[in-house]
């Protein structure tokens, strides 16, 4: 299977995603330059983390106009998988691939830490490798991760099972402090109505090697592999 990782000016999670796919998953990966109009026949598109266009105006606001986004949008409309991580999630929201927006953390601080997440929907093409309601640990690294949407959108996301990951308390993170950014409904990751675009603030691609801590991100990539190969 072939993964395409979009590199915007200012992306910094692209290599992590590339390495995760090649080394941890053992699959093929290519970089997709933001100015190109060619997805190189990839099966899966990854919008990586970073600070595309310096987060000018708003995080993700400029990247959505990159030439490659025309093809990324068409990829989404075909129902093909898109994994949008961190800044990629912000780009996907700005581009209208996912509903809502990501605002400044309520603490006003950039938070770089492992967090506990509950897998709220393990029936998506991205999460079939997890148990229902499994608690996993993934790293976050963001300053603008507070998921916000209007009431109607939130109700729809909750009702349709589109909330995929939620910040959750565990033994380390106290009950009142487990939500690292003030996200509405503790939302850490959502899928599109069609189910083929996943946006999430935590970094699964930075949790694929047991040498560096829990490899809880690996099942996410394996889930995509099983689904697309099937």
């Amino acid at each position, binding site marked *: 299977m072939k993964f395409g990782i979009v590199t915007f000016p200012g992306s910094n999670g692209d290599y992590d995603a590339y390495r995760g796919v090649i080394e941890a998953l053992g699959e093929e990966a290519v970089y997709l330059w933001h100015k190109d109009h060619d997805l190189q026949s990839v099966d899966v598109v990854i919008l990586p983390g970073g600070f595309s266009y310096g987060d000018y*105006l708003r995080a993700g*606001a400029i990247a959505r106009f990159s030439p490659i986004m025309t093809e990324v949008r068409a990829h989404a409309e075909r129902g093909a998988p898109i994994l949008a991580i961190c800044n990629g999630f912000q780009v996907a929201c*700005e581009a209208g691939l996912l509903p809502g*927006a990501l605002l*400044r*953390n309520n603490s006003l601080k950039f938070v770089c830490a492992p967090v506990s997440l509950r897998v709220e929907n393990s029936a998506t093409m991205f999460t079939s490798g997890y148990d229902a309601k499994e608690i996993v640990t993934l790293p976050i690294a963001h300053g603008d991760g507070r998921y916000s949407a209007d009431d109607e959108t939130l109700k729809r996301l909750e009702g349709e099972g589109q909330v995929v990951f939620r910040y959750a308390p565990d033994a380390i993170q106290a009950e009142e402090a487990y939500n690292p950014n003030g996200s509405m409904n503790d939302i850490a990751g959502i899928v599109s109505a069609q189910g083929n675009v996943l946006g999430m603030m935590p970094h699964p691609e930075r949790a694929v090697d047991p040498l560096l801590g829990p490899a809880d991100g690996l099942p996410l990539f394996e889930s995509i592999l099983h689904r697309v190969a099937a």
Partner: protein
Amino acid sequence: MIRYRVAVHVVPRRGLLDPQGKAVADALHTLGFSGVAAVHVGRHLVLEIDAADETTAREQTSLMCEKLLANPVTEDFEIATVSRT
């Protein structure tokens, strides 16, 4: 065509949590400005636009705000001033 200078305010939508505004308000309280009830931190943009008339310049600016300059999910905008350069 006339060149207009258009100033736009983009502010967080009322009712949405605005931690930046709250932090600034807290700092002002610390300085003794106890009368500050709330602060909202947004962006001030100044555009120079060539348009046939002021109405067109305003319409163009509104469109730009809806499409890019403000996030329709979380922000409101207002055109503060329009003047000839």
